[in-house]
């Protein structure tokens, strides 16, 4: 029983982490077409925010509650800064946003190294997350459950924002037809910026969740960015449903592969899985327009 429950539950938690990381990408990549490779570093910034908050608010029980909104704002502001200074020039060159943000990611990593040191720092778990619950013989840590709760909350908030709020409609209008959106009075530049802020902020929240599980580390972002992108790609753009399914599928699959083989073989197997999946379902990855082929 254990060889089934353990990977399933641990994998669900991994999937939840991936989901938070991927939700932000689903916004910035899926909606805006910006390929932000520094998104992983925003995750890292969130983790360090949790660490710094704990230095100020030493009570770990409270600091985590402060850290969540703080990380959202810190990562969000980093994203906003990136949008205003760099991305804004490159909306017509999606592949180039990828390269520029690779550069931004490198700089942020080195900054973290210089400020906090190359070694990671631990983030203390609040007492109310310290412990576990026995599920069919697996001692499921509360921290992992917390990740899942966090991911679900982020998902619901984002979905509600996109679907029901006026701002959500503005985002969708801007994505579908920028010129038309402008003519009906939507300030599309402002929409871009706020979208990017929210997308990046979500990475900050993900960073707090990561810090509870593995502490902080300058290279933390690189661990998650590729998997998060694979999740968005496999899930298909423009809809959160696919992202959710893909995140949990990748998380759980990796967990099972790791249980059967090793952590690194699991990575290989998951990659192979995604490639095979793209073979079977490349729909949505390409558009053939026949009236104009430019």
């Amino acid at each position: 029983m254990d060889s089934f429950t353990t990977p399933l539950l641990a994998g669900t938690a991994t999937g939840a982490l991936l989901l938070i990381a991927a939700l932000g990408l689903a916004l910035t990549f899926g909606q805006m077409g910006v390929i932000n490779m520094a998104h992983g570093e925003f995750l890292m910034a969130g983790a360090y925010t949790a660490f710094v908050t704990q230095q100020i608010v030493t009570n770990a029980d409270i600091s985590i509650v402060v850290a969540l909104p703080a990380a959202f704002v810190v990562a969000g502001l980093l994203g906003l800064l990136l949008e205003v200074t760099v991305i804004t020039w490159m909306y017509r060159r999606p592949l180039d946003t990828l390269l520029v943000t690779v550069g931004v990611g490198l700089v942020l990593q080195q900054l973290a190294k210089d400020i906090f040191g190359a070694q990671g720092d631990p983030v203390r778990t609040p007492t109310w997350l310290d412990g576990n619950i026995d599920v069919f013989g697996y001692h499921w840590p509360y921290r992992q459950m917390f990740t899942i709760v966090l991911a679900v909350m982020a998902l619901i908030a984002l979905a509600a924002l996109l679907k029901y709020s006026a701002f959500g409609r503005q985002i969708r209008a801007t994505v579908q037809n920028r010129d038309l959106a402008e003519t009906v009075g939507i300030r599309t530049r402002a929409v871009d910026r706020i979208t990017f802020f929210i997308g990046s902020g979500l990475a900050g929240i993900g960073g707090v969740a990561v810090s509870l599980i593995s502490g902080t580390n300058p290279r933390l972002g690189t661990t998650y960015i590729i998997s998060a992108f694979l999740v968005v790609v496999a899930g298909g753009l423009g809809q959160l449903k696919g992202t959710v399914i893909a995140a949990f599928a990748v998380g759980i699959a990796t967990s099972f592969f790791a249980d059967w083989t090793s952590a690194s073989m699991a990575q290989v197997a998951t990659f192979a899985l995604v490639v095979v999946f793209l073979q079977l379902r490349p729909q949505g990855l390409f558009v053939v327009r026949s009236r104009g082929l430019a």
Partner: protein
Amino acid sequence: MKSLVRTFGPLVAIAVLAVLLLVVAPAVLSPFRLNNLGKYCCWAIAAVGIGLAWGRGGMLVMGQGVFFGIGGYAMAMHLKLEAAGPEGIPDFMLLYGDGTMPGWWEPFRSGAFTLFAIIALPAVAAAILGYAIFKRRVKGAYFAILTQALAVVFATLLIATIQETGGFNGLNQFTFFFGYNLYDPVNKKMVYSIAAGLLIGCLVLVWQLYRSRFGELLIATRDAEERVRFLGHDPANVKLAAFVVAAVMASIGGAMFAPIAGIISPSDVDATASIFLIAGVALGGRALLLGPALGALAVGYGRSTLSESFPDQWTYFLGALFIAVILLFPAGLASAVGRAARLVVRPKEATP
């Protein structure tokens, strides 16, 4: 006359570079500097391939470290076996393992097989991967992300298999290169010359590819892939050919890197290393003939120099380089120079 210059001008430029690398450099540089230049040449060989795939073919290959690694490890395995002697096994296997050698190492005792593998392995790997990706019309950012994922996976795999590949430490301490003692400065110079010569060879090869009809077809595929379909070509095949050639070039670069650097390890082939290879190409000008190679030589030099004097600042520099080049000179420095030159020249033309 004008068309002669256009056709053979690039060849002259390659010849100048050949003289600089093969005649001037060995005469004026210290053995240490020359060896460093050898490393840059290896990166430049991979960069030439990236220029072909990305600059001309529009495929942003973010995982060339994998192919660099295939060539590098294939060569390194042979050198390890050569150092271990006819029946011997590599030292690290005694250290970390139970002293038995995995069967797939055995063929690499043969130098001929190793050379064959350096070409064939990346070609087959790139062909399979490329076929799967291009036939399903996965392209653009998706392609870039998939290739980078490949680099991450590759490095993870290497680190995890310490008994078979030396793990995080990689493979090092080579003593012989196909019978030549690597501690002998004369032989080191020879290895350098081989690397520089291969770089020149790759440049001549892409020169011919760029002026051939295949080169035109590749640009056409880059700029309007769907349109190429209605010329009766399957664009997947065009891209596949360029991708395979780029992979083989990366592999050759890696194969020469191992004896010159004296080591090949996961950090030479992972995602960051792959990005580093792209940096030079972006700097030099991705679509130009000499741009990628010169850019890679420059970035390689910058890396050595900067990390000697400011070990921590190098990463900032590399990051800033990406941001500045892509933001300001997306076609590379060479094209920026060209544009500036035209600005200077044009006023003169205006007054007849």
